[in-house]
């Protein structure tokens, strides 16, 4: 006898609906799972066998074949357990009614005693089910909050296989989980305050612009002058995620298994600061079973690379695509896989190995040429994708502390500028494509003419000019100006990349 249940699989950070077909036939007793099932799925046989028996059902002594369709999609993970077990029960005639199997996706890992455990990526799996036209989702009761974050889906949570079967056959219905209110993760509070940063007006200003328009920022300068501290302040300046973004980002974290299941909706904008020893795979994602890397975990937020030149060259190189396209593409045997990775890059590094090149109060002790080689670790293409570049030095003795603002003041301006961008164009200035540099977005012919003129004067590539214009747009937004003016453009040009002398 044949039965079919519904489940879903994760590819990258997206879910894909999966049909679980079960056939129970005469023959030697066996349980076979086909459909590019990985080792974790193969082990489902043992879990399903025990769970069925220990839930008071019977595992038919027949030849059982389970096919996971689409059969050419590699599958891994333990989320199919529930769908397989229910499928076997249906195919062996142990269910009173099978109608609901067609409109409920089943996602959960089975314990040997029949308990249903939540799996990573529930949110993405639910979204895949909804996208495939499946109205309902049955998950382990621990995963209901996460699943309920998917709009337009009727979510039920079952503690065990027995409960799930009772619900599906209509014997004892489980209550639907209300989609609202969603428990949100608490906002971050551990960032340092800008008031703690000594001096560095240009660095401060550039950070504000970078956060306000989602631009990429580099701070270069000798050690111990507050580069890292300044960048860490960014976390407190980021406006919270809006509803749509919150679901999008939470889904990525769900796939990565990084969500708190009781409060699964992320409201704080991602702020990822991987250490410089990180592997390329961990930075941009990949591996046999593709997992999102730090670049994708920073989606809609900030990726902070402190001591950027210490990162592996291939890791830095892999950041080129996300910096340009906002996505990461992983090439695999089964075809390329694309994951979202649109972030603002904030980075800091010393200009040379000893760190003191260009510093006023201490001499650089590096061999001639060493600094040049060191700086060349930041490849041209990557350098070209930096929007704001600030060379910092230790503050002079008499620092003017009048103008030092706390983070709260800056985050107000950032939020206002953020709002203006949303109202005008729906996306951040840092994401504006070249065709959007038009009159309707405040780029008049005069300022565009000046941009071209400055480009010739400072020898800037078209990409750099485009990036400069986007930064100028943000500076204008911070000033509350509808149009981009000469002063905004000239300020933006102040933050163009410069090569240290020697």
């Amino acid at each position, binding site marked *: 006898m044949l039965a079919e249940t519904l489940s879903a699989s994760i590819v990258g950070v997206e879910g894909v609906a999966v049909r679980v077909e079960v056939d129970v036939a005469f023959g030697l007793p066996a349980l076979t799972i086909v459909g590019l099932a990985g080792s974790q799925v193969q082990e489902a046989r043992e879990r399903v066998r025990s769970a069925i028996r220990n839930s008071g059902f019977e595992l038919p002594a027949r030849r059982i074949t389970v096919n996971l369709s689409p059969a050419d999609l590699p599958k891994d993970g333990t989320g199919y357990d529930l769908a397989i077990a229910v499928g076997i029960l249906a195919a062996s005639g142990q269910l009173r009614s099978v109608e609901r199997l067609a409109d409920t996706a089943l996602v959960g890992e089975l314990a040997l005693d029949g308990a249903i455990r939540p799996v990573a990526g529930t949110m993405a799996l639910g979204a895949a089910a909804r996208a495939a036209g499946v109205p309902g989702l049955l998950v382990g009761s621990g995963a209901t909050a996460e699943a309920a974050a998917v709009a337009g889906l009727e979510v039920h949570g079952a503690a065990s296989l027995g409960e799930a079967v009772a619900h599906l056959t209509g014997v004892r219905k489980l209550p639907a989980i209300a989609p609202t209110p969603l428990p949100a993760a608490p906002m971050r509070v551990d960032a340092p305050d800008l008031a703690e940063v000594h*001096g*560095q*007006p*240009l660095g*401060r*200003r550039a950070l504000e612009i970078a956060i306000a328009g989602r631009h990429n920022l580099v701070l270069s*300068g000798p050690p111990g002058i507050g580069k890292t501290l300044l960048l860490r302040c960014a976390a407190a300046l980021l406006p919270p995620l809006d509803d749509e973004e919150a679901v999008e980002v939470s889904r990525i974290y769900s796939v990565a298994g990084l969500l708190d299941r009781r409060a699964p909706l992320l409201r704080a904008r991602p702020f990822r600061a991987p250490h410089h020893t990180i592997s390329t795979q961990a930075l941009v994602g990949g591996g046999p079973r593709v997992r999102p890397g730090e670049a994708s975990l920073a989606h809609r937020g900030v990726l902070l690379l402190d001591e950027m030149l210490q990162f592996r060259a291939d890791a830095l190189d892999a950041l080129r695509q996300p910096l340009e396209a906002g996505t990461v593409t992983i090439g695999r045997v089964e075809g390329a896989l694309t994951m979202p990775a649109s972030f603002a890059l904030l980075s800091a590094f010393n*200009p040379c190995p000893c760190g003191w090149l*260009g510093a*006023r*109060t*201490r*001499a*650089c002790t590096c061999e*001639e040429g060493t600094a040049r080689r060191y700086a060349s670790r930041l490849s041209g293409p990557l350098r070209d994708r930096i929007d704001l*570049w*600030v*060379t*910092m*030095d230790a*503050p*002079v*003795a*008499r*620092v*003017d502390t009048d*103008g030092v603002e706390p983070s709260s003041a800056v985050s107000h301006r950032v939020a206002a500028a953020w709002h203006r961008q949303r109202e005008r164009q729906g996306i951040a200035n840092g994401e504006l494509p070249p065709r959007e540099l038009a009159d309707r977005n405040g780029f008049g012919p005069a300022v565009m003419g000046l941009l071209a003129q*400055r480009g010739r*004067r*400072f020898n800037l590539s078209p990409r750099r000019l485009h990036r400069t214009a986007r930064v100028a747009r943000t*500076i204008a937004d*911070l*000033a509350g100006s509808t149009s981009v003016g*000469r*002063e*905004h453009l*000239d*300020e933006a*040009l*102040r*933050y163009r990349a*410069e*090569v*240290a*002398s*020697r």
Partner: protein
Amino acid sequence: MIGVGAAGPIGNEVGVGGRAGPRTEPAQLLSLARERAGWANLDLSGLDAVDERPFWIALSLVPGLGPVGFARLLLRYGSARAAWSAGPELLGELPRLAADTASGLQRLSLTSVDAIASPVEATTERAGGRIVTALEPGYPPALATVDPRPPVLFVSGDAEALVGPAVAVVGTRRATGYGRSAAAEIADELGRAGVTVVSGLAMGIDGEAHTAAIEAGGRTVAVLPSPLDRIYPPRHRELARRIVSTGGALVSELAPGHAPGRPDFARRNRIIAGLARAVVVVEAPDRSGALLTAAAAIDYGKELFAVPGPIDAVASRGCNRLIADQMATLVTSAAALLQRIGAAPGERQASVLNLSEAEALVLGNLLRRPASIEELMGRTRLATGPLASALTLLEARGLVESYGGATFHATLAARRIGRSGGLDGG
């Protein structure tokens, strides 16, 4: 400091600080290990330049036989020809002779002198230069003060450049924006006054000085640490070409094919000092090669000037100490320097700038002294955004420059306009 106070036109003060004239005691500070060769005691007047030429060239090629050994041989034998014919016997004349020098000398003396000299003449010509011995009229008269004097020089470019009045402008390779702008200003003033600018073609201050002199329409001479066929640093090859094509000259005491080493860098500094009437150290940290040039200048009785730097600037520590120890005269402006060496300033054209209030404020500040954004904020009371914007505009108009982006300084063009009163009325 090169700039001047807020109100006045720029560069009219006279140098103050050091006393005029050479210092006699060469300094615990500047230890220059040198041997007295006795070139001063040599009487070369009796020697026939044409007859001696191949022998001078050949002897100068003996590995390990430097200008010092050369002078000793001349003292002992009277002429290079006689020294050459003395053959291996002359080995005894040279105490502390390196083994390879001895064998090289022995080997060379078996060969005919022309067979040694003419290939060198040929390779020098191929490198676009010529050989000048100390006996010949093309030899720069200013080098008469130099001891040890290079017996032969390899010269490319205009011989005239080695005759006229010259001032050396030297400094660190790791120059700051301040140092570069000071070097450019001084070299510009010298160039326009018709004074040849001598330097070492190195990166940083040297390159800045050569370039500014050329752009001012003046002559400049580069004393190379390498042979003519091997311009060092390679990144200044184009600059070297410009020096020659604009009436200047390249000078080296090393024969083509010689692989330059560390001592060659130190040794050429004495030629820089020798060729010049005065030496200006623009920017030098402790232990800079420019301080060797300074020591040589003191030794040869040349007037020594130093450009002061901020007291916390490592890049100027050497200069500041030269001034503090009263070894060098403090340079307050390029014009004051000209006055000290008795040259008349060149013509300059007046032009007027059209700047906004904020831009004029920023430029006025930078004309007084280079500054970081932070310092400018304090001095102009402008907010970061408008200040950054004004700086870019000034930069786009070629009035302000930044090396590395941390500190800013007024460019030569801005200084010229400032001096001509173009900033008056903002």
